[in-house]
């Protein structure tokens, strides 16, 4: 897609250790501006760890993470957020006692562009009508799917260069997941660069430009959207040696 343009987000030779165990080993991939890349794989494959390393929640033992060519490895999470990467964390982590609006306002904290807030807010309300409907109510009252929408909306309001999503389908009913992915497609169509970690490999592969299959902390395979139906290939990648 954009092989010649410099990648927006780049992970190079990433190694992350928890104690003596390497959760991620020599992982490299790149995401160009406007692209959508998915990371899939079995439990413990290191997918979430990769996102955590990008966000600075965990320090890489080796390797680098680069945003727009600039190394961001080792930055504190708040600094990474303020550099233009927004994470929609696994489990949503909305603030249940705050109103939906306050949750959205928190999304603005990392925003670099001080103008265009009203426009972005309108866009977000259009994308997520439930968020608009409940905007004065405590976020804890929202359903799982609605909270997911709120978390994504919150991420978008930061006007990030890259939006990271950690398992957005987790704990959601299938119809709700479909709705979330439809919205994600719209988000992506709006020009946002997306990196997605997903349990639902087929869903992710169909959505993304490139899907990287991780297992045991290593990159096993890279799939295109056409490979989404190829279950043999996926099984091989997940469980093969």
């Amino acid at each position: 897609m954009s092989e010649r343009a410099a990648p927006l987000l780049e992970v190079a030779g990433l190694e992350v250790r928890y104690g003596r165990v390497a959760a991620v080993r020599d992982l490299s991939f790149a995401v160009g501006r406007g692209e959508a890349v998915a990371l899939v794989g079995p439990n413990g494959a290191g997918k979430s760890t990769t996102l955590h390393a990008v966000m600075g929640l965990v320090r890489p033992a080796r390797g680098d993470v680069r945003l727009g060519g600039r190394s961001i490895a080792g930055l504190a999470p708040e600094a990474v957020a303020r550099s233009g990467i927004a994470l929609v964390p696994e489990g949503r982590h909305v603030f249940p006692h705050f109103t939906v609006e306050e949750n959205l306002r928190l999304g603005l904290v990392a925003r670099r562009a001080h103008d265009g807030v009203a426009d972005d807010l309108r866009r977000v309300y259009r994308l997520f009508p439930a968020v608009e409907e409940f905007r004065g109510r405590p976020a804890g009252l929202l359903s799982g799917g609605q909270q997911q929408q709120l978390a994504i909306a919150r991420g978008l309001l930061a006007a990030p260069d890259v939006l990271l999503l950690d398992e957005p389908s987790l704990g959601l009913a299938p119809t709700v997941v479909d709705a979330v992915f439809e919205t994600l497609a719209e988000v992506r169509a709006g020009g946002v660069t997306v990196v997605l970690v997903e349990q639902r490999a087929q869903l992710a592969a169909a959505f993304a430009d490139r899907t990287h299959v991780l297992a045991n902390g290593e990159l096993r395979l890279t799939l295109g959207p056409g490979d989404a139906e190829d279950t043999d290939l996926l099984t091989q990648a997940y469980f093969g040696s």
Partner: protein
Amino acid sequence: MNALQTVVDAVALGSLFALVAMGIALIFGVMRLVNFAHGELLTAGAYALFLTTELPLAVSIAVLFATVIAFALATEVAVRPLRAASPAAMLVTTFALSFLLQSVFLLVWGSQGDNAGILPELNRAADVGGLRIRWVTVASIGVGALLLVGTALLLNRTTIGLEMRAAAHDFRTARLLGVRTNRVIRFAFLLAGVLAAAATLMLVVQRPLVTPVYGFQLVIPALVGVVVGGLDRLTSATLGGFAVGFGTSVLGDVLPSDGRVFLPSVVFALVIVVLLARPSGLFTRARTVVERV
């Protein structure tokens, strides 16, 4: 008549304790630190007032606030290594810091006590409908209410307040959203300093004799009140502080004079009872999970 007087006095003391408690709770909220040494902020402020008794009132008050805020910010720096420690370790360490600071005060000023009398006019009583209420009581309630409401507004209406509340609720997610937690923590200490300074001013008017244990003696009930009220939420913690101040004042008036010496025992016994009955606090709504095995 007498009952009303008791209540008014209790509300005044409660307000001052609430100010101190709120400061303790703010700091706990953003960094989960229980600061045994919070009282030394008050002692430092009281000594600052002592040192500036000869100077004009405005200067004195300015020095008070500056000193307490400086101490508060210095505390923030000193406790940074404790960020990942367990609550018990924090308690012991800040206990040590408290003792250290008290020793410094003892070293510099001795144990005799110094008179930091300020605004002695406020100690005069006004006759309000049969009640003799001291001006300082009115001032305490007024200042207390003003600052408590002001802080609440700050927390609820401003961005920094939102960031503080977010950090208190979910530190990790707050960081992911770009909240600069170091700044937020520093701000919490600053705010706590302001509240403590105001409380000190009102307290010194009523109790002008400053000793190295001035703040420590006052903060222990406040700290206890915070834990008893419910450390996890700001409102419950502040209410807890208010309750301890209120309760101490009422019990002081109500207990027979020969029983009055046992006031501390009664208060602390009640504290133990509350801790056993509701370890997460008296005024908390939610069943927060507390270390209880």
